[in-house]
């Protein structure tokens, strides 16, 4: 669309230039995709969980229960939103609002295909890491503001966990960035057109997947909302749509983590016969399936095991991996 032909719009939105259309459509697509995606992922999760335990999962609403999570969303919207009496009213209200920000912002830079990217940034990877940290902040806010011991313990655990696991996450990303010499998502994907980074960096890829699982607070690292000890962790006091927003953020973070892994290690949109978006979405959902599969396989870690695993195993290995990568790149 040529913006110069519309002088009034140009006066008002001129600073956006031809980006306006891309911006509006992109944001609309993201805002549509995020809730539908998380509804779909909840269904996938329940189905996979069911079949792993030899039961069918949701079967009643729609064919094979595919509309179950949409109906659940309607139910959650109709529910009363309770604020505890001694809770910090404002923080309690803000926490679920901020938790969806990373879920929406991170989609802006994800390259679904060479043309399907809302905004190309020179520091796309950095933007995703920076904004995902907000979810840790909002978990802390929610847990603190609830004025509930279980919520507070859950929130404290979340912060300790994300500090521990962000280091190996960034270190394993770093070894890919050294290889492709760019922080731009599309250039990282373009750098793996003959061979995926997974071939060169299997250790970094595995560490990355483990760390995204921990960052999104999913089992076996779900100490933040460990049902058997902390009722349901930081969102114990949340009801209705606020609780649903935390859920939506969790499942979207899962998808974003998988898309990041696809971009960094599994060749992004590259694949034979079909168009880029098909391959990207297929790979991302396969990785999401792997996370779900991990959740329904392994029991929850104890907190000292969780910390030991991060500090004593993941960080040394990822440092070593980074060192070896740097030396090999320098020598070759």
């Amino acid at each position, binding site marked *: 669309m040529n913006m110069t032909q519309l002088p009034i719009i140009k006066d008002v939105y001129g600073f956006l230039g031809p980006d306006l259309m891309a911006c509006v459509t992109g944001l609309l697509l993201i805002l549509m995709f995020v809730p539908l995606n998380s509804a779909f992922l909840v269904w996938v999760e329940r189905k*996979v969980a*069911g*079949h*792993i*335990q*030899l*039961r*069918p999962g949701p*079967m009643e609403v729609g064919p094979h229960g595919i509309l179950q999570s949409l109906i659940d969303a309607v139910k959650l919207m109709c529910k009363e939103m309770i604020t505890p009496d001694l809770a910090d009213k404002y923080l309690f209200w803000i926490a679920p609002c901020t938790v969806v920000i990373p879920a929406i912002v991170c989609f802006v830079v994800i390259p679904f295909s060479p043309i399907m990217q809302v905004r190309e940034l020179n520091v796309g990877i950095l933007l995703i890491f920076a904004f995902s940290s907000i979810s840790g902040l909002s978990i802390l806010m929610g847990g603190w503001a609830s004025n509930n011991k279980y919520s507070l313990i859950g929130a404290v655990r979340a912060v300790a966990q994300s500090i521990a696991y962000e280091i190996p996450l960034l270190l394993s990303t770093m070894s890919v960035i050294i290889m492709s010499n760019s922080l731009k998502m599309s250039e990282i994907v373009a750098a793996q057109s003959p061979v995926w980074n997974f071939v060169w960096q299997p250790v970094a890829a595995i560490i990355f997947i483990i760390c995204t699982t921990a960052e999104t607070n999913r089992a076996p690292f779900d100490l933040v909302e460990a049902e058997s000890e902390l009722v349901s962790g930081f969102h114990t006091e949340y009801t209705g749509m606020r609780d649903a927003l935390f859920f939506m953020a969790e499942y979207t973070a899962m998808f974003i983590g998988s898309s990041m892994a696809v971009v960094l290690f599994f060749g992004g949109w590259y694949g034979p016969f079909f168009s880029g978006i098909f391959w990207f979405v297929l790979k991302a959902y396969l990785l999401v399936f792997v996370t779900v*599969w*991990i959740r*329904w*396989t*392994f029991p929850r870690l104890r907190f000292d095991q969780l910390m*030991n695993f991060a500090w*004593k*195993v993941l960080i040394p*290995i990822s440092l070593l991996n980074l060192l070896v990568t740097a030396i090999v790149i320098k020598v070759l």
Partner: protein
Amino acid sequence: MNTSYGFKEYVKDIFTGSKSLVIGMGVTLKRLFQPIVTVQYPRQKPIMTPHFRGHIEAILFDDNKSHHCVACGLCARTCPSHVIKVQGEKTKAGDKKYGKKYFIDFTKCSLCGLCVDVCPEKTLKFSNEYELAFFSRWDGVMDLMQRLEERK
């Protein structure tokens, strides 16, 4: 983790740990493709084992195409919950008595099975009926002879 811990053990731990994780993933993946065992109840009916103990039922014998109940009342007397009521009938004087009506109030039955054990004619058994929820207390009262007639 132990603090007195050599480098060798550390590396070995990582490898054995990774191996066991992969084995665990394999187990669940195999499970994922096995057939599910859930019975979608109202649409599919489960098949009960022959040893399932539902309420008692009169056995249909082949020799006289009916039950062998002689209305002796031993079951009614031995029943700890006083659930059973038997009515016999004779067609003419000097004839053998045979069971005409056999009422049980299943709502009070404790499924102890004493009636089945005590029956001298061995004409009682446990049914395979498992849908035993009623809307009224009177729905729990059933006539075994009438049920036998319906089964014929």
